[in-house]
């Protein structure tokens, strides 16, 4: 899935790490040497506080995005046009839930707790990918989400498999492997619609028109405005810049759109022979920040649905604990 707001600050900025003692200075030196040698940092290794915080923020935002990302697609499970599409959509949403779990677990290796992370999400303090603050209006949207939203996410996630933090990198390897069907099922669903009636083809085009620019914004602010990028790159947390990833996505998507038979809603989109890439128009960053800051069409609804799901699940968590407690008491009694 779904990255992006990774580079978005949750709260106050991080201070540069300052070694407080000779011992810390030596550990910091070892850390830097390992990073420079493209080595991996593991949970038990010493790491600068800012590195830890950056990772907790990024991995937890990534986890939140997986979980919130279940909502726009989950809305369509009951309305999928066939049993086959319903099964596929359930499998995909189920995968996203699993991906959230891998990522929360990876974040927990850094010393944060599941409860803290969920609390940050539910209180609105933590960000998640703002692409999910847009509605999925009809079935074509579900195809487009798979093709473009998951396509953009995969582009973002592949380099994360080489992240310097071992547990995150390994979680991403698993995620990317499982995700390979997500984009294909979306594209295939759209191919099927394009073979249908003119009305169906119009639905696909309309959905592409509504999602295209939002997907380009998923890669985050331009490199020139992205404050976390430079430090993240130096630490090997981020490997490829926002703008480079966005360009790769555009270059990969244009031929896919052609085969599908849809146009991409950008009059400035054209092949640039000299650059060897497609040129494209300006992204509306005001809209992006407006949605990140809580004013998208679905921000409130998504968060409310997420909080309600958590609260409605409280009895299950309570029952599991009560059952475990009962089993424990029973085995103590039997042993006596």
């Amino acid at each position: 899935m779904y990255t992006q707001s990774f580079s978005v600050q949750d709260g106050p900025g991080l201070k540069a790490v300052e070694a407080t003692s000779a011992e810390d200075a030596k550990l910091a030196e070892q850390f830097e040497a390992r990073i420079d040698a493209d080595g991996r940092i593991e949970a038990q290794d010493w790491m600068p506080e800012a590195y830890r915080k950056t990772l907790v923020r990024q991995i937890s935002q990534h986890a939140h995005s997986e979980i919130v990302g279940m909502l726009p697609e989950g809305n369509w499970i009951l309305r999928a046009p066939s049993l086959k599409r319903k099964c596929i959509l359930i499998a995909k949403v189920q995968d996203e839930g699993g991906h959230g779990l891998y990522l929360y677990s990876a974040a927990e290796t850094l010393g944060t707790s599941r409860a803290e992370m969920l609390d940050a999400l539910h209180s609105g303090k933590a960000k998640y990918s703002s692409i999910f603050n847009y509605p999925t209006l009809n079935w074509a949207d579900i195809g487009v989400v798979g093709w473009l939203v998951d396509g953009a996410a995969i582009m973002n996630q592949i380099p994360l498999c080489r992240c310097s933090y071992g547990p995150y990198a390994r979680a991403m390897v698993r995620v990317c492997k499982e995700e390979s069907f997500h984009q294909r099922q979306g594209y295939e669903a759209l191919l099927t619609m394009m073979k249908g009636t003119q009305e169906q083809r119009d639905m696909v085009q309309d959905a592409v028109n509504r999602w295209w620019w939002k997907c380009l914004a998923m890669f985050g602010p331009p490199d020139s405005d992205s404050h976390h990028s430079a430090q993240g790159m130096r630490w090997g947390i981020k490997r490829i810049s926002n703008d480079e990833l966005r360009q790769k996505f555009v270059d990969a998507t244009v031929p896919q759109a052609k085969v599908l038979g849809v146009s991409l809603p950008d009059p400035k989109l054209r092949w640039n022979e000299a650059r060897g890439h497609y040129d494209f128009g300006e992204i509306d960053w005001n809209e992006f920040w407006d949605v990140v800051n809580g004013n998208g069409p679905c921000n409130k609804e998504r968060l409310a649905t997420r909080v309600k799901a958590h609260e409605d699940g409280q009895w299950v968590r309570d029952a599991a604990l009560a059952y475990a407690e009962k089993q424990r008491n029973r085995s103590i009694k039997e042993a006596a």
Partner: protein
Amino acid sequence: MSTKPALKDWPLWEVFVRSKQGLEHKHCGSLHAADAKQALDMARDVYTRRQEGVSIWVVPSAMITANNPDDKSELFDPASDKIYRHPTFYDIPQEVGHM
């Protein structure tokens, strides 16, 4: 000679070795040891004599909960007919390239 089994009081430990920086620990076997420290020392001698690892975990075998092998079909068969979880289930025209 004593008839007491040599390892009577030494619990069993499962050994996990990380073969290379960045990779996960993989289970590679087990051994008896009196405590965690000794288990680590012995795991080093038994499982990493040819530099097979850069990190070792030892876990008391008794701490591992496994499924009942008789439940294998109940647990795993439900996944066998969900072929749509695999990317190859979807026909994508060749000219689209890698997706």
